[in-house]
């Protein structure tokens, strides 16, 4: 045998071994390898759950989803099968969709859910539902908040109730060839029904917008804690944020000097001005009943403070410089006489006022169900020493008694003061979720609340020839169909800027169905800007809910 023949035989033998080996792998061990490959290359993908919708108290949608179906080629895909399914729904547009899918590898369509479920069975096609979050308008931005493109709630109700809203994503298990092996359906998020009334909310936003100044407005049911309206102006367009805005848009929104992302209703504190007076009066009526009831001052437009040797150390002006004349506590509230409250405050002392503030929990978080609520400040000597590093002076007491100085409250904290007066001592944690069993408790101060309601009613009803006699919101609420109890507030801010404008109140006086607070930054006198807005809101409320008028 020649050597080349031998070599050929060796080569033949080598090939034979390889053929045997190939046969062994491809036939004998075939199923083992197929199983191994299945195990290695089967894919699981998550199927997002639709986020729950957020609705107003009448079922109007505040936040909802637009559903798309994302089709991606992920294997040797069954074009015929896809074509047949799509044709039933897209008819002549099918060819175009298929063309785009093949050219770009993916396509996003709006398809009914039933068809989408059928698409899962198409081999080599990855089907993913995509939800785009949509929102009603800017007016709701600070209540509803927004969720990002990944479906995480980042602010407002979207954040607070994220766990409820987000649901549970499902799973899709596919073989290496792209056939569906198993499917765990996503559990959709639950819908949230809120106590918000779209009509009131949008109206409030519009009224604030018309002032052109930042501000906030809240309307609540004082007895149940339901929030009808919670507006902070300016807001932002949540649709931009939920769809993933570009950097330029973000900069533009963030750069707004008015601070679009601050929820002024709960996350910013301001001097309450005279709107704090009911708390001071409550302290007076509770701790020094007789003195307060019998106390009168002859207001000449200023209040002089003397030291023990009788030397004048300071003089504080009333907002009404001609003076209110002889004034008792009812008139003092109605005409917002500072001189009376200077006197009352200096009799009471800061500790008593602070004690009443603690009873009312005025500077504590109200516990409303949206994130980033801020705590206000009701000062006392200890607080001043810790935070300002100075001792407490009588002047501080005097300023505190008219809501100036160091007092800082959020609109929602201040509204809680009026709510507990409206309910004669029942405090309920405010909530935006409609069917929430809210925590509540009773503050028993005897008839103090009735006295307060009486005085607050005078603010809107006490007539008179001049501002010395007239309730501060009398002209605003003249001829208003229902009696309103409330209080204006004008908080000096210094620096030559106009004061902050406040109005807080409730109606009807006997069985209050609604409370309201309006705050306008640098809006001027309370009676000038905030009170008319509050009046318009109350009017709108009783138009919408006339049955609540029956006192």
């Amino acid at each position, binding site marked *: *045998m*020649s*050597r*080349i*023949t031998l*070599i*050929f035989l060796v*080569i*033949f033998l*080598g*090939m034979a*071994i*390889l*053929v045997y*080996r*190939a*046969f062994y*792998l*491809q*036939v004998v*061990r*075939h199923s*083992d*390898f*197929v199983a*191994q*490959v299945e195990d*290695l*290359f089967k894919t699981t993908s998550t199927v997002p759950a639709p986020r729950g919708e957020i609705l107003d108290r009448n079922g109007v949608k505040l936040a909802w989803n637009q559903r798309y179906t994302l089709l991606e*080629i*992920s*294997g*040797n*895909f069954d074009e015929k099968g896809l074509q047949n399914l799509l044709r039933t729904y897209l008819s002549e547009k099918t060819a175009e969709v298929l063309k785009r*899918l*093949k*050219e770009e*590898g993916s396509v996003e369509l709006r398809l009914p859910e039933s068809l989408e479920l059928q698409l899962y069975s198409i081999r*080599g096609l990855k089907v993913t539902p995509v939800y785009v979050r949509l929102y009603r308008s800017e007016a709701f931005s600070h209540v509803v908040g927004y969720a990002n493109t990944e479906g995480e709630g980042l602010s407002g109700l979207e954040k607070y109730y994220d766990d409820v809203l987000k649901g549970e994503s499902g799973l899709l298990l596919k073989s*290496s*060839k*792209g056939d569906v092996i198993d499917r765990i359906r996503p559990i959709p998020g639950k819908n949230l029904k809120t106590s918000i009334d779209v009509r009131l909310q949008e109206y409030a936003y519009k009224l604030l917008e018309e002032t052109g100044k930042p501000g906030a407005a809240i309307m609540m049911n004082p007895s149940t804690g339901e929030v009808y309206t919670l507006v902070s102006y300016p807001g932002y367009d949540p649709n931009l944020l939920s769809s993933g805005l570009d950097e330029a848009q973000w900069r533009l929104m963030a750069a707004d000097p008015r601070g679009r992302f601050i929820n002024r209703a709960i996350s910013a504190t301001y001097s309450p001005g005279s709107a704090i007076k009911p708390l001071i009066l409550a302290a007076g009526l509770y701790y020094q009943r007789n003195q307060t009831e019998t106390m009168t001052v002859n207001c000449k437009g200023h209040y002089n403070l003397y030291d023990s040797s009788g030397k004048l150390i300071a003089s504080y002006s009333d907002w009404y410089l001609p003076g209110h004349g002889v004034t008792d506590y009812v008139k003092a509230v109605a005409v917002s006489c500072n001189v009376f409250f200077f006197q009352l405050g200096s009799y009471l002392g800061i500790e008593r006022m602070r004690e009443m503030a603690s009873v009312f929990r005025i500077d504590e978080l109200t516990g409303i169900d949206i994130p980033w609520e801020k705590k206000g400040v009701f000062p006392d000597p200890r607080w001043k020493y810790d935070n300002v590093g100075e001792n407490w002076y009588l002047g501080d007491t005097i300023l505190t008694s008219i809501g100036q100085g160091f007092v800082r409250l959020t609109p929602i904290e201040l509204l809680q003061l009026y709510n507990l007066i409206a309910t004669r001592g029942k405090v309920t944690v405010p909530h935006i979720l409609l069917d929430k069993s809210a925590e509540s408790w009773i503050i028993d101060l005897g008839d103090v609340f009735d006295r307060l309601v009486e005085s607050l009613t005078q603010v809107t009803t006490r007539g008179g020839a001049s501002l010395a006699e007239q309730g501060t919101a009398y002209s605003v609420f003249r001829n208003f169909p229902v009696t309103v109890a409330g209080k204006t507030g004008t908080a000096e801010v210094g620096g030559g800027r106009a004061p902050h404008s406040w109005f807080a109140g409730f109606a009807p006086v006997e069985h209050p169905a609604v409370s309201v607070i309006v705050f306008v930054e640098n809006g001027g006198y309370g009676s000038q800007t905030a009170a008319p807005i509050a009046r318009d809101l109350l009017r709108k409320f009783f138009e919408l809910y006339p049955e609540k008028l029956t006192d």
Partner: protein
Amino acid sequence: MYPENDSEKKLMKDLAGLLLYVLLMLMLGIVALYGADILISTTYHVELSFVKKQLLWIALGLAGFLITALMDFKIHRNLAPVYLLAAVITLLIVFRFPPIGNSHRWINLKSFTIQPSEFAKIVILILLARYIEHAKDKMTSFIRGLIIPLLMVSPIVILTAIEPDLSTSVLMFTVIILLLYVAGTRFWHILTLMSGLALIAMASFKIGILKPYQMERLKSFVDLWTGGHPYQQELGRMAFATGGIFGSGPGLGTIKRYIPVRESDFIFSVFGEEFGVIGILLVFVLLLGLVNMLFKVASRYVESAFGRYYIYGFGILIAVQSLVNIGVNVGLLPPTGVPLPLVSYGGSSMIATLTGFGIAISIVTGEQRG
């Protein structure tokens, strides 16, 4: 086994058969590369980049084939020293280029790269054929039948080894030994040489002539031979095995996409996944048929020792390289970077193989012309 036959008709038939085998191998390669190109995730925007480029390489290879086939083969015999010089120079030039994967194997000319070792394989065949023709009566001598021819081609083998491309140099060495054996070198001479080399290697390990860092270097050098990551081999075997009897069908393999260098070193696995046992048998039939036909033609029609041993060498080269490549693919050999001739993607390998094949054809036709 291969009785000589002078009939012109029979020769033409055998030559046509030879060409047919090569063409079928090329076509099979294109079909296999189509599979390597088509990935399941991008089924619908495929550029067929491997197929397109491979067609270009085949065209260039066929040009090389035509030129050498029509040339007088004796020119190569005369130019053998020049070829050796060229091979050595190009194998030195590769060190001027930055390494790819720790190895200097390529000359980078921006738009394409050349792998000189692929051409050097053909140069080795020419050198050996020429030597055997020259020393055909002295092949039984240990020195003249084994040592001298080995020393002659050793620059190529050693330069390839230190690129490092140990698998190609071992392949070269194997082909050289087999060809010398066919040419008459004594079997026990070869055995002696191999044992001697093995002893020297073991001794240098044992005695510790090598310093620890040199050992490390040697170890990493050996690792480079078994260079590829075993997992790509594992994936290759997996893809291959899932092919079953009939395969997934052309372009429809699903595992192939995960195999690195599926277009060259692991093209056999891709083909196996898509065409199954049936396709694999075809590859073996074609390979065996081609090698058999080369040997047959050389024995029957080629008188000159240079021509005959060149063709034997060419057949041995194709056979050994295929065995190594397929052995790696089915997991019988450690992973190496040896392509499957005429099938794997790659310009240098394709052009060198087809040009080498042209030389074989020119030998057969030239002999007949006289």
